[in-house]
């Protein structure tokens, strides 16, 4: 298999994975597919797909300006490829943005609802317009292929005539939005680290985008030469290398002058996370590429040059990621939780990049993007012997397509099966399992063991005339007083009392579905639950599931309240009623229904006490409040 086909096979596989994840994202929302939080609402999709993507596509306007405006005709052979990369880059940005937006179908709102104060509004408009300009710039390449159709050739002629104004318009728009991506962060002085927050961040972004543009074009030229087994374009590489070095030096100067003039110089040598990230970024984006580019091209291997350009591209994208999220103070300090992208976020981003690359290969192979069309068939060996592989995958012509389809389908279906539904539904919930109440006559009811529980005296309540069944309102078979924790098994989340799987499995209760569910007469598929019958069936095994003195009379639902809700609804109701009815108690114990009357300051309270009274810590905490309970379980 040839290099290019191997690459395509990998890309199709990634695309398959991404498609499965994309479906999940749109069905279940952002919360379960990403690691974004209220503290870090922007993540990898904004940092890499949008900010990195726009920067990566900077090659288009940089090369176009050098080729058409500055008259550097040496660059002409790669101008079309650069514009195609930019075009696909922006398409990729738009697709990436669709995943990140909460309401992507409203993206057109930017056209009709205006807010010119917003940098994002400006970026949105510029990207839209620039995408249109790039389309017009690239269309001639497609139209060239059909010289016989008259209409198309007229359009081609027209576009060719206006190519210089188009290029100039493209440069104007690029200047704006490359820098405006930096302006996005001007409004966040409280988020960005001082090494990155600068009043001139738009200018820094523009300069680094030009550096990246050059390096990206080098990378692209070398990669496609490798994949399509062409000769390396040494002359062009040498030129771009020179321009790139100059731009990097300018960028470095501006960056450091800015930091020193602002007075953030002390952070450069003050050992911290911010400093480390900054120096890594400078090393990657400036120093390594500068050193490699300073060596004459004939003295080094092409692979080292490739390495230099690649590291430079990674460095500038790393800058975008730093500004976009990594160095935000809630990530660097202990104020918030540290954000790290989830696997799903990575796979969507990888999928978007693969789509762009596949489309690039398509255009390169079918249209005259380069001076010579790459010949992809010359390397297929003609084997005369019988090839069993070929029999199954088809003839020479379609063998690759079959392979790609298989790769895509297998990757898609495997990923889809790995994304488990229950995991999706449960992710995002912080489960707090409940533990058994400690003690016998005097219980310590403290489900999550945070020392913030209640001491409950069984005897006292018995004296008040409550029977066991009043609180132990439902019991397991042959059990007189099942613990609360068995059904109310999560501190804050509702749970299931009825274990459906256990009851239907042959190892468990082994009950036929139709014993509980009524077969609907009309279709036979529609199951309907019948109260009376079910209870009869339950009673066969559960003799005293509902004690006669229970507060529950009829089973209405198998959902259980959360532990806190169950406890509070059980206790408070009585306490409040008691307080209202009994004037004597009201006088002697006016606080009977106050929180602190039950949640007393006893021994195991220490942990919270410490938290509260540690004044140096001065931590503010939220105490869970009683939930408003809709729909009472008590009949």
């Amino acid at each position, binding site marked *: 298999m040839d290099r290019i086909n191997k690459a395509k096979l990998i890309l199709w596989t990634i695309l398959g994975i991404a498609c499965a994840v994309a479906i999940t994202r749109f069905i279940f929302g952002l919360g379960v597919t990403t690691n974004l939080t*209220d503290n870090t609402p922007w993540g990898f999709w904004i940092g890499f797909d949008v900010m990195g993507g726009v920067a990566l596509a900077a090659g288009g306007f940089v090369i176009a300006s050098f080729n058409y405006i500055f008259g550097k005709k040496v660059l002409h052979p790669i101008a079309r490829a650069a514009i195609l990369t930019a075009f696909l880059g922006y398409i990729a940005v738009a697709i990436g943005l669709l995943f990140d937006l909460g309401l992507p179908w409203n993206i057109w709102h930017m056209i009709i609802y*205006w807010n010119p104060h917003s940098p994002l509004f400006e970026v949105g408009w510029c990207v839209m317009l620039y995408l249109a300009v790039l389309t017009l710039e690239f269309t001639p390449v497609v139209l060239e292929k059909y010289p016989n159709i008259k209409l198309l050739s007229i359009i081609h002629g027209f576009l060719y005539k206006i190519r210089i104004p188009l290029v100039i318009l493209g440069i104007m728009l690029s200047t704006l939005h490359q820098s405006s991506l930096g302006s996005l962060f001007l409004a966040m002085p409280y988020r960005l680290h001082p090494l990155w927050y600068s009043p001139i961040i738009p200018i820094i972004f523009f300069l680094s985008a030009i550096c990246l543009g050059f390096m990206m074009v080098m990378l692209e030229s070398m990669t496609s030469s490798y994949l399509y087994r062409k000769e390396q374009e040494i002359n062009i590489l040498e030129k771009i290398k020179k321009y790139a070095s100059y731009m990097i030096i300018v960028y470095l100067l501006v960056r450091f002058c800015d930091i020193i003039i602002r007075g953030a110089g002390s952070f450069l040598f003050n050992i911290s996370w911010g400093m480390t990230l900054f120096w890594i970024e400078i090393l990657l984006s400036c120093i390594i590429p500068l050193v490699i580019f300073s060596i004459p091209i004939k003295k080094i291997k092409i692979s080292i040059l490739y390495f230099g350009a690649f590291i430079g591209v990674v460095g500038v994208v790393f800058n975008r990621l730093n500004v976009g999220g990594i160095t935000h103070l809630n990530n660097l300090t202990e104020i918030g939780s540290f954000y790290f992208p989830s696997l799903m976020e990575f796979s969507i981003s990888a999928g978007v990049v693969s789509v762009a690359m596949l489309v690039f290969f398509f255009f390169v192979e079918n249209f005259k993007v380069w001076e010579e069309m790459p010949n992809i068939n010359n390397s297929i060996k003609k084997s005369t012997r019988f090839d069993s592989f070929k029999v199954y995958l088809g003839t020479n012509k379609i063998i690759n397509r079959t392979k790609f389809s298989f790769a895509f389908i297998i990757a898609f279906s495997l990923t889809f099966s790995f994304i488990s539904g229950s995991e999706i539904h449960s992710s995002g919930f912080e489960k707090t399992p409940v533990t058994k109440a400690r003690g016998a006559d005097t219980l310590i009811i403290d489900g999550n063991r945070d020392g913030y529980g209640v001491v409950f005296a069984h005897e006292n309540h018995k004296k008040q005339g409550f029977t066991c069944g009043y609180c132990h309102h439902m019991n397991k078979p042959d059990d007189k007083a099942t613990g609360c924790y068995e059904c109310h098994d999560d501190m804050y989340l509702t749970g299931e009392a009825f274990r459906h799987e256990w009851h239907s499995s042959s190892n468990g209760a082994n009950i036929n579905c139709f014993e509980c569910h009524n077969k609907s007469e009309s279709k036979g598929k529609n199951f309907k639950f019948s109260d009376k019958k079910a209870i009869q069936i339950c009673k066969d095994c559960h003799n005293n599931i509902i004690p006669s003195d229970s507060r529950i009379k009829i089973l209405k639902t198998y959902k259980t309240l959360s532990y806190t809700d169950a406890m509070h609804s059980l206790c408070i109701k009585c306490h409040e009623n008691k307080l209202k009815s009994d004037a004597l108690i009201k006088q002697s114990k006016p606080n009977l229904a106050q929180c602190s009357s039950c949640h007393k300051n006893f021994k195991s309270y220490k942990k919270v006490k410490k938290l509260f009274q540690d004044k140096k810590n001065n931590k503010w905490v*939220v105490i869970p409040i009683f939930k408003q309970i809709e729909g009472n379980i008590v009949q």
Partner: protein
Amino acid sequence: MKAILTDITKCIGCNECVKACKVINNLPPDKPREWQKTDGLSASNWTSVLHNGKYNLRKQCRHCLEPACVSVCPVGALHNTETGAVIYDNNKCLGCRYCMMACPYGIPRYDWDEPVPYIKKCILCYYKIQNGTISQPACTSACPTGATIYGERNELLKEARRRIKSEPDKYLNTIYGEKEVGGTNVLYITAKDCPLDFLLYYNNRIEKGIELAGMPDLNEALPITTKWAMGAVPFAFLGMGALMSGIYWVINRRSKLQGVVQSENQKKEDEDGQDK
């Protein structure tokens, strides 16, 4: 311009305001999710009461006079109102979450678990007050101790100053929200031993030794920070266009002239050659 004044020393932490807010806005019960912050605010909880052992503090949207969220929203879904409440229009929202990023207090919350998510935050019961259903926000009317009160901003500022003046030993001599980030409509006064500097988002980085290097003044409204960049947009746009056209014209002309000169030179050489 209406405002809310919360007096930390009077709050007893009974959570009545939280309940009232939930009831009037018909908010679902809270579930602990991993994307929530620890301050108790969430898409279903627009106000929360924080406790530190001695004092209680009610958190809610601060309703800035010059809100960062309003200035950054690309579609203008968030907007200021004449009563001072900062409200939002769900129908315009794109879901870009720029408002959450830009808010200096970190207030707006997101429906992370919904396939059709919206931004959620306190709106000072704007629509209900406009309708005339209620005369003041549910939280202030529910407060049993008068720790949080609603009224004209100027009146409340006077009241806050009066309280501080009458009991200078008890109160800290600052009105939080009077000037910071251009002033807010939710004001706090607090006890001497309980400064509320942490309320401003990431203000505690100063404790961590990260100073304000090149950052705007604390009392400066955030929309000002983007003003120069947005103002420069038309000039950068047209300037770049003019520059590029100029360079193109010069270089094109030079290469044309060079072409003419070259062809003349060639002619001369040819003629010379013919002569010889």
